[in-house]
């Protein structure tokens, strides 16, 4: 199909209204990705404030402001940067990868995106209002919102609760759309076991989302009625139970962790075979491992709360169940390495990111195994060891996978190649500064530095200085990413349809940039075309 013809068929409004009214999966994917990038910088600015406070002992800010920063940094990065980012990838890629013309429910798709700007305006409003002397600022009780601290707090928590409800609606609608699309709109011959792995991981993620977002909604609604309507679900003074909040929260929270990482696994599984020029090793076991991880995610939640004083048998159960996760996760790592083994590798920017994710995510996975061992966890719990652990899985897992994915697919999205040299510089700066920032935090945690403190004893100074310097470098390096993306959208070397020498999959059979409508006539998939 010639590009000019495709353009003729677009039928959409122009200017701003194009983006407000669009029901096109590619446009909505772009909106999600740009929104995610914006939130990445908002949350990143908060991280800079945190590291500024912690660079030296002594206070620079009021601790109440510091607590708002840690709380909102987490909320914005999780719900604003990572989750919408992955939905952006899903929107762009899933229809193209399964040979569908669009998402199954395009208007719902538009709605689920446009909820988000309002949700995050709501989340950020109390912080901004407090600069103008209105109210007591944003939520400051941690993103986990533990009761009774969150019952005691100001209106920032109410804004957060309503904002979480809106994000939850958006996520659930998005998840329904993805499941319906994958189940109903696959091209003839695209059987489930022929789906690209990115599509598989998103299918599983979407089920997790539908299962747990309502649980979070329930938890925060109970919090809201405790705060304003005289109930006492979590308030011990009225016969409530503060620990119940944690159980409900983490019943959402642990599957949430895999919602944040499974699509990243999917992206990595697309990138590595392309640049190793070799099919993905162990496709079936990858699918089963993803499903296994998703199942286990529902029975390990209490490992986030080993110190609440559970019965011994409870602690043992959650320890054993948590250790089990190492097995399917290990299978994935081994499969990726076996895919590289005896391949014919080249190291363009997406591959660099993919290799770094495999390596650095594993560091986070192994420290996760350490955290599962209950007696040792009593020493690690709520220290910087945990902070280091979850940044290794979330930053060098989820976020770096998304960056790799962006470099991998941006030629298809824009029709231009990004600047390879700049991409590589961005990769190395990110990887090096990331490790300078977070590796020393393992040592801080083991030496006894608690998390979420604005000031610390003098023996923690040295590693905090290093960590802060790393963080400022990491933050500044991301401006380069924006510059590269901007340059690529504006122009650059023309991308071919296949883009990468050994790219496999339906998205590489359409022109670059992908025309507004693709696969209006479904392609026929044979066994030979199946997964790369």
């Amino acid at each position, binding site marked *: 199909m010639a590009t000019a013809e495709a353009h003729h068929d677009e039928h959409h409004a122009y200017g701003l209204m194009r983006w407000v009214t669009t029901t096109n999966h590619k446009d909505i994917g772009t909106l999600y990705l740009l929104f995610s990038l914006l939130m990445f910088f908002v949350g990143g600015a908060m991280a800079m404030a945190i590291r500024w406070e912690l660079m030296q002992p002594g206070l620079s800010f009021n*601790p109440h402001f510091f607590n708002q920063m840690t709380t909102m940094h987490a909320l914005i990065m999780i719900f604003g940067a990572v989750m919408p980012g992955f939905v952006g990838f899903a929107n762009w890629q899933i229809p193209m990868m399964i040979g569908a013309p669009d998402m199954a429910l395009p208007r719902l798709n538009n709605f689920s995106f446009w909820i988000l700007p309002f949700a995050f305006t709501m989340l950020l409003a109390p912080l901004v209002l407090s600069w103008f002397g209105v109210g007591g600022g944003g939520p400051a009780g941690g993103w986990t919102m533990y009761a009774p601290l969150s019952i005691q707090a100001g209106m920032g928590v109410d804004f957060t609760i309503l904002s979480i409800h809106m994000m939850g609606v958006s996520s659930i609608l998005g998840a329904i759309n993805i499941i319906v699309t994958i189940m109903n709109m696959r091209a003839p011959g695209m059987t489930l076991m022929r789906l690209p792995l990115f599509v598989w991981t998103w299918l599983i993620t979407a089920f997790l989302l539908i299962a747990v977002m309502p649980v979070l909604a329930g938890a925060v609604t109970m919090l809201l009625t405790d705060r304003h309507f005289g109930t006492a679900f979590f308030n011990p003074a009225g016969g409530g139970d503060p*620990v119940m909040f944690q159980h409900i929260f983490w019943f959402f929270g642990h599957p949430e962790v895999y919602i944040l990482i499974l699509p990243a696994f999917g992206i990595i599984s697309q990138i590595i075979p392309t640049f190793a020029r070799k099919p993905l090793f162990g496709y079936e076991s990858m699918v089963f491992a993803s499903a296994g991880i998703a199942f286990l995610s529902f029975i390990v939640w209490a490992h986030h709360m080993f110190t609440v004083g559970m019965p*011994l048998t409870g602690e*043992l159960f959650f320890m054993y169940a948590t250790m089990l996760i190492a097995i399917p996760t290990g299978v994935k790592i*081994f499969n990726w390495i076996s895919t590289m083994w005896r391949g014919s590798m080249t190291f363009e920017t997406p591959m660099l990111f993919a290799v770094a994710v495999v390596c650095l995510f594993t560091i986070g996975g192994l420290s996760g195994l350490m955290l599962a061992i209950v007696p*040792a966890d009593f020493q690690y719990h709520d220290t910087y060891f945990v902070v280091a652990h979850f940044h290794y899985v979330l930053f060098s897992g989820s976020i770096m996978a998304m960056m790799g994915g962006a470099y991998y697919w941006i030629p298809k999205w824009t029709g231009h190649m990004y600047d390879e040299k700049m991409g590589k510089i961005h990769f190395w700066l990110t990887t090096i500064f990331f490790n300078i920032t977070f590796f020393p935090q393992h040592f801080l945690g083991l030496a006894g530095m608690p998390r979420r403190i604005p000031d610390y004893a003098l023996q923690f100074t040295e590693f905090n200085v290093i960590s802060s310097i790393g963080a400022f470098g990491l933050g500044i390096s991301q401006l380069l990413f924006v510059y590269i993306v901007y340059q690529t959208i504006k122009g650059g070397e023309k991308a071919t349809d296949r883009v990468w020498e050994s790219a496999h999959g339906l998205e590489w059979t359409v022109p670059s940039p992908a025309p507004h409508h693709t696969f209006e006539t479904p392609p026929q998939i044979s066994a030979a075309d199946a997964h790369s």
Partner: protein
Amino acid sequence: MRVTRQTLSLMAKLGSAILLSVVMSVAHAEWGLNIRPPVTKIGEDIIGLHNAIMWVCLGIFVVVFSFMFYSLYAHRKSKGYEAAKFHHSTRLEVMWTVIPTLILVALAIPSTKTLIAMEDTTQSELTIKVTGYQWKWRYDYMDSGFGFFSTLTTPRAQIENEEAKGENYLLEVDNHMVIPADTKVRMLLTANDVIHAWWVPAIGVKKDAIPGYINELWMNVTEPGIYRGQCVELCGKDHGFMPIVVEVLSKSDFDVWLKEQQGTQLAAADTGTQTDAVQVAAADSSAGGEMNMEELMQLGEKVYAQCSACHGANGEGLPGAFPAIAGSPVAMGPVSAHIDVVVNGKAGTAMQAFKNQLNDADLAGVITYQRNAFGNDTGDMVQAADVATKR
């Protein structure tokens, strides 16, 4: 102009931080990489477990990634390496499922043993109840019928970077929790307001202090000495400022200390030391003396240190989050309503019922201070007897 100055100060801060780190690393750096040496048997078991898992993890990492890095080195297109075509191997896949399982079982066995030992609080010889408050700890010696609060003593000026920081910056308190060496001490943990967590790394115990719950843990410290820790569950604004100091004495020294405490606690009640509410009330009724304005203000200024965490050193509060006292309708309004808020707290906020923490004289002093300092100048005096009626 303003931007330039900010940039300069930013550069200065960065520069001084780098310089500081270099100087400190040369002078007396504590580049602690691992858990600090424990002083209990359980602590040793934990560090043994920790080291074992860490080495296992490092070993796995090195073995697995030596394959990857070899592959990255050898299997490159630029070296003319032709890609192989294989995409699965049942034998390998079974192997890398079974071997990790065996490693996990090997780790689970010693972990289970240690955990069972940690949870066995029977046959203790001494019980101490620990209560978390925003933002201090209270220790009650249940068997001996006395208790005390333990509050941060690091001066505000050190925290605000106006003075050089002391050796135990942020890890020093007025009253240590004192325990005997070589004794199994059981601790009961709870909280008054929100969730806190009690942790002393060298002792190897950590547990949440939760309102409405009573959690248990035990410790048996072999070596006398002073061990420091912190609250490790976010509990509001001053979460970072409620340290824990445990002083371990030999058994005979501990007995002496215990006698001393039992004697002084009752006597101290009417001189203004914080103590248990029941004892306070009893002591007050016998004292009942009136104070003049100057005495009340002096006492009040001292006690106000407890209020300043939220309400600010100059009563300015934190707009929107914590109300100001300077010019506030409570401090300038009816006296009895003011006493009521301080004595009984305000439900659903961080404002605690201070009747549990302060005696009548202290409360009278601090209320008088709040009504006359910061330009409030109401001229009102509040006496201990006025406070007693609100209890």
